[in-house]
């Protein structure tokens, strides 16, 4: 099991898992999102290869209304 903080909330997952696999578990596959892992952008192209590690802090964002 690995512990990840996603958008400020700690969650545990059966590891190891890639970013792509995580997004699938979060029902975010195919959605227009961007992801930052421990302060660094994870490009969409590397979602399949990037393996998440215990303790990773993730920000997953979308575009919303704003001025």
């Amino acid at each position, binding site marked *: 099991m690995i512990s990840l903080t996603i958008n400020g909330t700690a969650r545990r997952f059966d590891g190891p898992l890639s970013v792509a696999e995580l997004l699938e578990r*979060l029902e975010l596959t195919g959605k227009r999102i961007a992801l930052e892992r421990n302060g660094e952008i994870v490009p969409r192209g590397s979602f399949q290869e990037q393996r998440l590690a215990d303790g990773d802090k993730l920000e*997953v964002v*979308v*575009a919303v209304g704003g001025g």
Partner: protein
Amino acid sequence: MDQLIIAGKPYSSRLLVGTGKYKDFAQTRAAVEASGAQIVTVAIRRTNIGQNPNEPNLLDALPPSRYTILPNTAGCYTAQDAVRTLRLARELLDGHALVKLEVLGDPRTLYPNVVETLSAAETLVKEGFQVMVYTSDDPIIAKRLEEIGCVAVMPLASLIGSGMGILNPYNLQIIIENAKLPVLVDAGVGTASDAAIAMELGCDGVLMNTAIAAAKDPVRMASAMRKAVEAGREAYLAGRMAKKLYSASPSSPTSGAIAPIQNKVA
């Protein structure tokens, strides 16, 4: 044709609009359409995890194929957070580099923190972003942001969401005089005349959100704003008459009037 050029790209609309504070996406889309805006700002926020996976997304209502989506850094109080936000935004929008930078100083007035703004602008320009930067109406800061390499400078008319209109047209005029970049008024526009005044001063464009979204009839106000920006721009290009305290120059001929009858007192 009189076009707004930002980072080398031409736009026929000089009105840019935000997408916040609307009732729903349908109203957002209707207002944006009525405004004629081609550039619309969006905010970047955490997605809701584990909630409705079929929730519609703003970019479904305002597709990037049809609009130039301008991500902002609303809610950022440090240069670092603004830079992180725009890196995420660029990834979200498939490498699109045109962004709106705003770094705020305090959550009550939402006044920009120009020190952090300068720092963020330097970093972003180095990383290849095309930065449209929200700032105060300080002419020295505006010029400094231009020198750093921003693609547009966007001084406030008054505080974000205040609807107070242009509080300091003189500072704005100085900024416009000194700028080689497009100058767009951003923040504080309240009604159509505010937008027209900005354009009459020589601004290249106007960015607004609350003025439309918080109107009683947002779609109608969006339409009014479209006309106001066009009218103000045309008046500016037409070259207004001079203002004088008095002119002694009536519009009708001074000679040839019928003789006035002098009334005799009985």
